[in-house]
């Protein structure tokens, strides 16, 4: 790997120096601007968000066709859904009387409300598709093989959590589409032998989709499942690092 040798300082270098080598900047980021290999490694190693990555990575793994960024994009969708979801939460009350009107209100009276709702919904669909494609990528590149066995299992759990997140969100607009989709979906769960009817009762908070179902799905959707998903994601990402990054041919 050729190491860049610093040349004569130019005007740009001097501005860099003023901006990134001052007391305040260094107090926040510790390293200078990542324009030298040393700083580039330090910035990854010392930044909370970047340290999900190793400082160096095998050449083949930065090729877009190796992963198509599918796992990363799934995580990115999760982040985007969190942001748009929080914005929607400011205007949405999970009660049968208000839910539908609140969605209408978001769409008509709230600045960028329709846009936020659209983005939230399309990102949710995108996340389901991406997580499935990511699973296919991992399978066809043989990336579940030792020592990554358990991370595949964590991935399957995350797949189910993604479905559940999407499914619980589906009820919240409280329109005909939501109501009947959840009715059908919960009937599928209720068909389980022995435990089915009880499971459905717990899930809906009653025998039919109603006010109790709405508050249950809302709570699951905005706090319980995202927390659970975040925990499993943390395990998922941490284990990728522990197991030596992306799988590589022997």
């Amino acid at each position, binding site marked *: 790997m050729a190491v860049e040798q610093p040349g004569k300082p130019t005007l740009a270098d001097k501005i860099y120096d003023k901006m990134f080598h001052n007391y305040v900047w260094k107090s926040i980021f510790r390293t200078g601007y990542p324009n030298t290999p040393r700083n580039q490694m330090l910035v990854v190693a010392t930044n909370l968000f970047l340290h999900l990555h190793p400082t160096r990575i*095998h050449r083949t793994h930065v090729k877009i066709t190796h992963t198509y960024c599918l796992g990363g994009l799934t995580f990115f969708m999760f982040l985007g859904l969190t942001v748009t979801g929080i914005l929607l939460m400011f205007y949405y009350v999970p009660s049968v009387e208000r839910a539908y009107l609140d969605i209408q209100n978001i769409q008509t009276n709230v600045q960028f409300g329709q846009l936020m709702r659209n983005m939230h919904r399309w990102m949710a*669909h995108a996340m389901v598709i991406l997580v499935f494609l990511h699973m296919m990528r991992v*399978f066809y590149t043989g990336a579940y*093989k030792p020592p990554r066995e358990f991370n595949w299992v964590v991935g399957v759990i995350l797949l189910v959590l993604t479905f559940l997140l999407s499914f619980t969100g589906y009820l919240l607009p409280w329109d005909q589409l939501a109501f009947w989709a959840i009715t059908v979906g919960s009937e*599928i769960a209720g068909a389980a032998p022995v435990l089915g009817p009880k499971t459905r009762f717990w899930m809906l908070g009653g025998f039919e989709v109603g006010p109790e179902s709405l508050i249950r799905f809302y709570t699951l959707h905005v706090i319980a499942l995202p927390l659970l998903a975040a925990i499993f994601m943390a395990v998922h990402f941490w284990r990728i690092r522990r197991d030596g990054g992306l799988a590589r041919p022997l």
Partner: protein
Amino acid sequence: MATAVVARPAARPQARARDEEVLVWPDLVFVEFISALLFTFTIFILSVILNAPLLDQANPDVTQNPAKAPWYLLNLQELLLHMEAATAGVIVPTVWLIILGAFPYFDRDNDGQGAWFATEGSVKLTVVSAIVGVVGTWLLILWNQGTIASVLNSWFGISGGDTFRFLENSRAIQGNLPWPEWSESIPYLPFELRILDEGFTGFGATTFQNVDLPSFIVEIAIPIIMMVGLPSLLIYVLWRIGWVFTRRDALIVLFSGFVAVNAMLVLAGTGFRGEDQDLVFPWNLSVDEGIPGYQPPD
């Protein structure tokens, strides 16, 4: 001298080849940034031109026809049309998820990791299994819908008459064969087993004592035999002709078949199921608010 025997780990992290490595910043972070940007942009544009659907306010008295689950559950809803509810909706997906999670514990060697289709013949296996999955799923759906029988009859004049009517679809096996009366209630337990008998309305206890044999054959046995048997048969045939050698090969067949079948079931449920869950062409499906099958109330 006692020697502690320490098993060598099955797989150790690979030795690092420093000269093969690049720095994460900028090489990887840049790629991530660009793909995040592209996706934000795409989702943003999509959201500007396409509104999320919002139908009329929920009304328990007005049933949607057809009422459909979210699209990623329509695979299960499609299965429900063909078999017993508990098996289709709960047991099959649960068992499949367990099998899926167990993949790495079945295929434990390190061959073919870290690159696309790295084992020999894996592309071939993927393509063949996917085609078999697609064709097989549609054939089974069309058969069970009676479409194959009616096409054979009306286009080619082939008809089995009343004798072979039971072959038209799986339900016809139940309805058009002379099952003796006792076969509809065969006891397999000497007493009635009642589970979760809570004794108030709404939760009937789950009881076990008798089996309705024709119904069991049609609703559970045939679908399960198809689901377990057809993939097994495919793997067996590919093994006999020398395409499947390793466990990895078998998993490729199983997984590719699953992806294809799953995609077809979702597609059938989304784009081909109209009023009363009848099979229709997508262009005959009334589509409203971007939702296939939604009928605006009159």
